[in-house]
């Protein structure tokens, strides 16, 4: 009797867990399927190779926006990843228990909750106003600042998970502390740190609001960081709000491409970084 109740409880718990998993994954799958349904038909060679064309002309693509997004995300990652990881290393390895560390941790958590449009305004006043014009660089700064708290806090958490025995082992070998931190602790935590970076990357890749006052958008090519630049989310935003069916279709296609590119870059980073992992490494 008792055994039957246990089996039943076990089955119910497993069932609930599976159900919750489905509930979590379902919206993602639904969005993806809907995007393919709406967007795939508008994908063409021209979409990837041509720039937008004026209203009324058929065709045109988002080549400049795809490249623009890539440039913006590169700038953002160059700012957000090193700053975030350094901050996380400080919090976990040097500042433990200090007031400065607590202040940084609190600031990072608040920064994480700041609406992205506010981040855009901040970058506007910090970069755009002094420079006197919209620019790709200012867009990258806005996105980069948004990446910092996520990267910083996940780096800290992952470093704290590295057992103290590993740190002691390095110190006991006569390895200087900074070297032990970089070559042993950070390396041991690197899979988690990379996951944190990719989360931050994926999050800012789809941001529109911070780019409105910074990168601004551009209908043509822009190769310079000092000029306004097109970005996929911006282009989608503009096209989706327009009254033209042709632009709506392009917006759907753009959304699909954006998601696929994010998934692709995350998978690529994972593949590249997992190649050196040894048999039995934990």
């Amino acid at each position, binding site marked *: 009797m008792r055994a039957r109740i246990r089996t039943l409880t076990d089955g119910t718990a497993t069932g609930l867990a599976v159900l919750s998993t489905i509930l979590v994954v379902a919206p993602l799958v639904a969005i993806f399927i809907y995007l393919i349904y709406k967007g795939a038909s508008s994908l063409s060679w021209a979409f990837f190779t041509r720039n937008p064309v004026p209203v009324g002309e058929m065709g045109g693509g988002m080549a400049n926006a795809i490249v623009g997004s890539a440039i913006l995300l590169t700038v953002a990652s160059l700012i957000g990843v090193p700053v975030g990881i350094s901050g996380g290393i400080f919090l976990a390895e040097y500042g433990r*228990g200090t007031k400065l560390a607590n202040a940084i941790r609190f600031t990072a958590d608040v920064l994480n909750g700041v609406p992205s449009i506010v981040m855009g305004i901040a970058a506007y006043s910090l970069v755009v106003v002094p420079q006197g014009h919209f620019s790709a660089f200012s867009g990258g700064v806005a996105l980069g600042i948004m990446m910092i708290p996520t990267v910083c806090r996940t780096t800290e958490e992952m470093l704290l998970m590295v*057992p103290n*025995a*590993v740190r*002691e*082992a*390095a*110190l*006991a*070998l*006569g*390895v*200087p502390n900074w*070297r*032990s931190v970089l*070559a*042993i602790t950070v*390396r*041991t935590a*690197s899979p988690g740190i990379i996951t944190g970076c990719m989360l931050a990357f994926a999050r800012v890749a789809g941001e529109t609001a911070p780019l409105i006052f910074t990168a601004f958008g551009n209908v043509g090519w822009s190769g310079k960081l000092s000029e306004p630049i097109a970005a996929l989310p911006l282009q989608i935003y503009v096209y989706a709000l327009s009254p033209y069916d042709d632009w709506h279709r392009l917006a759907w296609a753009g959304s699909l491409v954006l998601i696929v590119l994010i998934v692709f870059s995350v998978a690529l980073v994972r593949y590249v970084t997992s190649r050196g*992992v*040894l*048999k*039995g*490494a*934990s």
Partner: protein
Amino acid sequence: MGVGIEVINLNAWYGTNHTLQDINLNIPANHVTALIGPSGCGKSTFVRCLNRMHETNPIARVTGTVLIGDLDIYEDANPVEIRRRVGMVFQRPNPFPTMSIYDNVAAGLKLNGYRNHRALDEIVEKSLKNSALWDEVKDDLKKKSGASLSGGQQQRLCIARALAVDPEVLLMDEPASALDPVSTAKIEDLIFQLKSQYTIVIVTHNMQQAARVAEKTGFFLNGRMVEFDSTHKIFTNPSDKRTEDYITGRFG
């Protein structure tokens, strides 16, 4: 070659807890010295004071003098330099989990900027042979992670890692307490062989182990060293009543 260790009036604290009180002791070169005593008696703290690992805890404090050979480690040298001369093996095997077996052994040298790859190969082989692990891992040196080995193998890997930086003293903090009897026997054989090249200090809970491997034994109780003598004397005819009570199993 090993060097002797002289400890004069050593005191250590964790916060307000006075964990070591007025320790005076001469540890002879190229011998095995065992430290025994009940849990919390300060023997681990003591060995951690010999390579300045004690002070890596921010609330810890040390006073007194420790001479490793001629070197006054709290006066004349920085901790990093001392830890290269005084190797340490911990209670739980702690190989670097993301590194290969080879890199684990080479870590101490590589992370100190040693770049001579051919010499490194030789040092790794020699260290693994010295720790009696070579035959078991020689085919997987760069393929397997240090964490993929069994517990006993991991501990011998940690010994090899400590030997690779060529220390003069080897501190072992209960090196076999997490291991099965077969692995323990291997570690003890190893200690026996290594003492010709190193001065070895081993902390142990296991009195038979102390009797088997050590020439000298020190008995610690409540942060003080009660008695230090030849192992034979400690186990057959101790001078102090408390030592006798402990080794005959009346407490601890």
